[in-house]
């Protein structure tokens, strides 16, 4: 074997081993690399108990309520299969909206509500001008009326 081909094999094997090792490590850390849990995972008991964690999903339409004290907000986070009620005291990000994505950090109380310490808005990958967004919304509404 020429020294050049030998080095090619060495580099190739080295990189292949490295990729394998990285894949194993990432696979092992799968749980810890998750930034948030979905309400379905929480309902299935897959979320950590006794410490803070994050839940992510859509803010359920019509669920946002402000308490009379002026600082507490209640809303529900849903992944359309399961829903978790959330209570939060603090300012909400500008993009926080019903029907839009949000990631909430906090602790699950015994009564099943999620006491949030931080609320982040999650943006989706769609970028469109307001007119297009309006058209999509109209189409969505038209579709919704057809459905039972």
């Amino acid at each position, binding site marked *: 074997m020429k020294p050049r081909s030998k080095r090619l094999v060495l580099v190739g094997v080295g990189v292949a081993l490295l990729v394998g090792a*990285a894949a194993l490590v990432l696979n092992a850390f799968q749980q810890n690399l998750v930034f948030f849990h979905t309400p379905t995972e929480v309902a299935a008991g897959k979320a950590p108990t006794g410490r803070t964690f994050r839940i992510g999903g859509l803010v359920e339409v019509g669920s946002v309520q402000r308490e009379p004290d002026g600082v507490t907000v209640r809303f529900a986070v849903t992944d359309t299969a399961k829903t978790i009620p959330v209570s939060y005291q603090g300012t909400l990000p500008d993009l*926080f909206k019903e029907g839009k994505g949000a*990631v909430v950090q906090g602790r699950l109380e015994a009564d099943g509500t999620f006491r949030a310490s931080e609320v982040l808005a999650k*943006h989706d990958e*769609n970028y*469109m001008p307001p*007119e297009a967004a309006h058209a999509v919304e109209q189409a969505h509404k038209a579709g919704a009326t057809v459905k039972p």
Partner: protein
Amino acid sequence: MSRPDRGPSILRFAAPQNFYPLAGRLAPWFAGAAALLTLAGLWLSFFVAPTDATQGEVYRVIFIHVPAAWMSMFVYLVMAFWSAVGLVMNTRLSFLMSQALAPTGAMFCVVALWTGALWGKPTWGTYWVWDARLTSQALLLFLYLGFIALTRAIEDPRRADRAGAIIALVGAVNVPVIYFSVKWWNTLHQGASVSLTKAPSMATTMLAGMLVMAVAAWAYTLAVVLWRVRPMILERERHTEWVGAELMREALRQGGRA
């Protein structure tokens, strides 16, 4: 040793004495293209592209953020490629190319992280979170800085080349992790709006602005790297005859102009 003028093959430019003048001739063209494309891209981005429905004007950071982030990943892959070529073929120029790329890659990485933070505050409600996308991108910056520090710290250029090449190859594993992190795990960072496998999920003029800016980033990188590699070649080859002749010619040209 090297056979500079053997055949019309493009491989003859692997020889430093042939690549040096080629780089000098190409760099101004890429620089010109970069300037024109940046102007066109910024005009599209700020005057043609419409306001985003949910984010308003703040979304316009993507015209800088996304090309910079793409470039930071791509430059690292090119660095790893030249490092592998250098290790396998023992070519002098390959290592210099990867070392000339590193500062530009690091710069784009900083730009991506910085603009991302500025966008994150009004959009998400935070400058920084430790999700998989942001963390792996931060790791990329440390890999760039580690590569630069290591290659500068080792005195013997041959050993510096090899050590840097190994960091570049090891770190390349991180690049697909960055790219696919938004797919593999739940992250706060949104998924890709533009990819090769599906139709882009953004308005056409927005996409055009972003793509023109991306091509501008390519042209800029080519120009800067070609300029940066030239003095590196001269320094590395300073004991050879051709560098002596080149410096003589340069001195004559300067003298003639004065």
